[in-house]
């Protein structure tokens, strides 16, 4: 076991750091959080910048224009961009980290040639049309229908949790192409160009009031059969392929932010007074913050174990589910503690005077989503128990 970086890894880091130091100060200011079109432009600008510097598609194979970096180099990339306060992947997320990797493994040469460079260059934004109102944890029960009609599929149904559906150019979609077979076997994976007739994209407001997600309604929307990726009715397998692309780096940026946020909370506690004394004088509060920081450090160590495992085997394995379970819970503890400390100031989502309310209240709400999105904690526990410990399936 060795947590130190190799010389090669260190020079990768140094070059990246040097480049970031030059480019970050030249970036324009970030658009307003609700200006989705402005943010699209900003995010694609950053992707283009990365592309031009040779840093686009850090985890993509070299033959498809990526950097072919190891998971450890990916970790370093995320550490350095976070350290430099570089823009996040933002609206490029689905293309770079989900649809793109799927296309790399499963798409036809023509599909790859058309789509992959456009994703890397920040020319195309992708969104995801997987979840449905009736298909959440049980995704394979999805019912959005695609009926073959000549060279087209005709799609009718509804998708939900489509992030950036209103700004995307393409949508990776799972549709039901055969309703008469067991649910996993009648699904196909399609590339849908957005803005087709018959589509209605409506913003879905989250509990925080933001609208990065959409609901998409389909009324006989036509998509060429040529836009299918993989065989007809083999879409479930195609979709699962992407899971194997996760190399332990999914939460690196978040973890770095959370560790900083927890340490900021300690500083905040030292500034805040309570009954005439510093809030930090409270031994219980100190222990709570100490415990959270120590547990975050432990999760950081687990992150590195997961990355090392991916580096060796190509797969994260159990560590990924374990990480998510532990992280969702810990992030909730941090958020609850912060809101408690902020007391009445936590009743504003935006900063209150000099108090960094937004980071903590947003963080608390974000923590609620961590136990739900991409597999609820209940589903994660099932996976850990069944796939890792080998306990019998529910039924």
């Amino acid at each position, binding site marked *: 076991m060795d947590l130190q970086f190799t010389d090669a890894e260190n020079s990768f880091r140094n070059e990246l750091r040097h480049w970031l130091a030059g480019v970050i100060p030249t970036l324009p200011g970030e658009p307003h959080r609700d200006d989705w079109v402005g943010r699209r432009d900003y995010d694609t600008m950053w992707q283009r910048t990365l592309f031009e510097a040779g840093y686009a598609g850090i985890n993509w194979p070299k033959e498809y224009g990526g950097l072919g970096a190891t998971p450890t180099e990916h970790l370093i990339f995320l550490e350095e961009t976070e350290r430099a306060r570089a823009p996040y992947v933002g609206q490029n997320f689905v293309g770079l980290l989900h649809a793109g990797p799927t296309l790399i493994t499963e798409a036809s040469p023509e599909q790859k040639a058309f789509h992959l460079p456009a994703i890397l260059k920040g020319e195309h934004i992708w969104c995801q049309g997987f979840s449905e109102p009736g298909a959440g944890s049980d995704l394979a029960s999805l019912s959005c229908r695609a009926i073959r009609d000549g060279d087209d599929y005709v799609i009718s149904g509804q998708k939900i949790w489509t992030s950036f559906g209103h700004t995307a150019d393409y949508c990776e979609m799972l549709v039901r192409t055969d309703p008469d077979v067991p649910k996993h076997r009648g699904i196909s994976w399609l590339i849908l160009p957005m803005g087709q007739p018959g589509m209605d994209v409506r913003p879905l407001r989250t*509990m925080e*009031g933001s609208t990065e997600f959409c609901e998409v309604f389909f009324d006989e929307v036509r998509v060429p059969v040529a836009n299918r990726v993989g065989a007809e009715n083999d879409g479930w397998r195609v979709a699962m392929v992407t899971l194997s692309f996760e190399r332990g780096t999914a939460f690196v940026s978040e973890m770095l932010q959370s560790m900083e946020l927890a340490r900021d909370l300690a500083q905040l506690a030292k500034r*805040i007074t309570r009954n005439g004394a510093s809030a930090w004088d409270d031994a219980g509060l100190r222990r709570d913050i100490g415990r959270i920081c120590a547990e975050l450090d432990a999760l950081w160590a687990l992150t590195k174990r997961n990355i090392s495992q991916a580096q060796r085997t190509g797969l994260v394995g159990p560590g990924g589910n374990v990480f998510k379970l532990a992280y969702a819970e810990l992030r909730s503890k941090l958020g609850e503690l912060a809101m408690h400390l902020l007391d*009445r100031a936590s009743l504003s989502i935006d900063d209150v*005077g000099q108090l960094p309310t937004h980071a903590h209240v947003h963080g608390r709400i974000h923590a609620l989503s961590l136990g*739900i999105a991409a597999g609820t904690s*209940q589903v994660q526990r099932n996976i850990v128990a069944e796939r890792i410990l080998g306990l019998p399936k529910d039924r």
Partner: protein
Amino acid sequence: MDFELNDDERSLQEGIRSFLTGRCPIEVVRANEETGGALDRTLWRELADVGVFSLRTDGFGMTESVLAFEELGRSLVAGPLVASHLAASVVAGAGDGSRIVGLLEPAEPVTMVEHLASLDDLIVLRNDGIFVVEPSGVIGVLAERPLDALTPITRLDDVPDGQRIGDAAMALQWRRDGMVLTAGLQLGLCLASIDLAKTYAMQREQFGRPIGSFQAVKHMLADMLTKAEVTRAAVYAAAVNIDGRGDSSDLMQTARMAKLLAGDSALFCGKTCIQVHGGMGFTWEVDAQRYWKRACVLDTHFGNSDEHAAAFSAAL
């Protein structure tokens, strides 16, 4: 000893519930978000007409008041309900709903006042007494995005002075009564969260069966109900105690018990209700978030759970 509701208590509670179900269904509450949580004066008067603010000046006790406030919490009614109720005995117009009376407690790290724009009178509750202030003269910064869309909130740089209307002893009693009434609201939030989560768990199907048939979901709901029922016992005990029909002479200590339990339980039930709803729980559309957010708001009223745990221990 009979710690079950008697017939009068039950019918009073049912009356309030029936009024609120008709007049303030959740759709009406939600619609108020579009006005930035501005209070509806007509509704306020109607609440006064059913006695919400004047119960104790009309000869009822804390027991009846808490039963009414449980229903107000359940229906997610917004506004300075507790403040106006407390003020009924001293501020003209509070009891009959002709004036909306708010309340602030000086707080750390910052003092925030709710519903400032809708208030006719603002009470400042300090350790050394109770003061009344003209709200229009209070200067502060309205939060652009309040956590609870139904609770607009304004940061004050300075706590206004105001005119004294009560001494330190009365302030202490208001705090105590405020705790218990707020705990009643919190109990109502718990019950509403459970109802909503239960309904969803019965209707929502995944893997070919209602999610409420999965132990994981079942046990979340069982834990919610458990917390709610323990809270109910605590809140009712605190109320009965204040009315002189209790089993403890330390009214403040039982009030703290109630507020502590109710604060923890409302937060727990709110977030668990969100979790039971999965992704839908994270949407604006579903009310789960409203219950949780209101629980966050109420936990800061009259001392949060941690403060009461500390204060409770001081008497040990």
